[in-house]
């Protein structure tokens, strides 16, 4: 298992697409930090949303630019990058014609899938961590390491860092259904772009359905993106002062389990019996 993972990791780590994806996740927070430093937002009478508050608090403590970076990317760019890592995991090998060469080695297919999923997951964790680290380090350089104090609102620097780490893990886990469906489709097709599109499309459809408030609530709360922003309540955002993990975070932590089990279960079942024709 370790050898299969090591060789797959070495392959993915040299892949131009990996660098492009991770590079974007570093570049965007840097642009954000530079823009915020050059043109700091003033305090509005009322924050429009949590992101608005995080942007403003970022000028009070650089740590909040890490929070802002996570909030700004978790709804789009990070999702795309995770979809790329998962969707290309198996399909790219098939597309290159290299999958059949791998599978004539005496390596059980399940082991190969485990190695590939581990690689995609690890790259996903690195992607999420890069966003937050870049935003936080850039924020500290630009606005310093301070606790957040704004009127009655106070959050210590260690508290912000701890919540940010928790929030990053939560966002990654909340997006795990995107990884799981991307990986599953990747075992079904030789088209890596098709698998990436399927994963991102799944996310977009879930987000759109969640925004239709006329739909029954039992349906909306079962959508994988419903609790995606629940981590933001770890931080003050004008409407509340920030708290520890909420009940929504707990629900948002449990919900992906079902999606991950179903999608990955199907991927394993299918790939182990699949005829390799590519």
């Amino acid at each position: 298992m370790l050898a299969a993972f090591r060789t797959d990791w070495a392959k993915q780590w040299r892949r131009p697409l990996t660098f492009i994806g991770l590079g974007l996740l570093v570049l965007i927070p840097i642009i954000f930090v530079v823009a915020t430093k050059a043109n700091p937002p003033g305090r509005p009478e009322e924050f429009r949303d949590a992101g608005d508050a995080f942007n403003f608090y970022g000028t009070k403590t650089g740590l909040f630019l890490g929070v802002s970076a996570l909030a700004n990317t978790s709804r789009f760019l990070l999702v795309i990058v995770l979809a790329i890592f998962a969707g290309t995991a198996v399909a790219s090998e098939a597309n290159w014609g290299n999958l059949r060469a791998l599978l004539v080695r005496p390596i059980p297919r399940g082991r190969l899938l485990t190695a590939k999923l581990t690689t995609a997951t690890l790259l996903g964790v690195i992607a999420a961590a890069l966003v937050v680290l870049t935003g936080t380090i850039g924020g500290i350089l630009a606005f310093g390491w301070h606790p957040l104090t704004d009127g009655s609102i106070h959050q210590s620097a260690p508290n912000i860092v701890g919540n940010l780490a928790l929030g990053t893990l939560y966002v990654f886990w909340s997006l795990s259904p995107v990884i799981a469906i991307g990986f599953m489709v990747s075992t079904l097709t030789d088209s890596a772009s098709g698998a990436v599109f399927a994963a991102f499309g799944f996310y977009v459809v879930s987000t759109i359905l969640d925004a239709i408030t006329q739909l029954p609530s039992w349906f909306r709360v079962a959508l994988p993106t419903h609790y995606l922003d629940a981590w933001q309540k770890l931080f003050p955002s004008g409407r509340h002062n920030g708290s520890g993990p909420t009940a929504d975070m707990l629900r948002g932590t449990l919900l992906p389990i079902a999606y991950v089990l179903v999608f990955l279960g199907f991927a394993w079942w299918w790939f182990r019996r699949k005829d390799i024709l590519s």
Partner: protein
Amino acid sequence: MSGVPGDGETGVAAGPAIELQGLTKRFGSSVLAVDHLDLRVEHGQVWGLLGPNGAGKTTSLRMLLGLVRPTSGSATLLGTPVRPGAPILERVGAMIEHSSFVPFLTGMKNLELYWESRGGHLQDSNVEEALAIAGLGAAVNRKVKTYSQGMAQRLGVARALLGRPDVLILDEPTTGLDPGEMREIRDLLQRLPTQGVTVLLSSHLLAEIEQVCSHALVMDKGRCLRAGTVAELTQAGASAYLEVDDTERARQVLSARAGVTGVTTENSGLAVSLDGASRAEVVRELVRAGVRVETVTSRWRLEEAFLGLLEEEER
């Protein structure tokens, strides 16, 4: 991958190197890709799977390697039933269809990641010998995306030879190679049996099968049309190419002779289809008729052979 085939040390049962029994593959309800294929390849033999595109050669090889699940029947390698990822594949080198690699890695890195995906080190895989055969030189350190098809094919042969396999399975190994490279690969395939390696290769090139293989199985539409030694198969569908001093006279003589089923002009000579007459008898007949025979070569057109075998099958 070392070890005497069938010895006790490797835990492999004695028996043929490759055995297919009633191997059948159906895709969906309408496509019968391989239809009850039987084949027994003894150790050290070189067998060719011969057939036109779509005959079922590649599907058969994929089933033999555990890439495709048979609908029915069985495939064994070195006495062990094949299943996906089976340990016995450690003793098999394979190249299926055109050689494909990770394009943004060098040839050497591709070999390394391929070999080490199951553990071990590339240095222990006989890589230098394999690379010498592939003859890529310094190009092995270039990214594969810069390779020509022929270079990728040669790297594919090197990959198949890593670890000195006991069984080598090659699907159209000379596709994309220039004549010199083809000759090198064919020379290699002729040398391998002397080292105890069993070879099964597919090709639609009759000349390749004739030069390299001791035995051949002719298939079409998934079925085995005929199997045996190359000499037996050649006799079954013989033809000849003749260059004579008087083609018109030769055509008249041959057209009237029993055992000759067709005479056509080809380049500066005559292509003669034989059914019952030998090439020697044809030449004697022409000489008796006063025609000087300047060239006579063995010919067996793939298309003619297949048509003949198919017609025979239908009868």
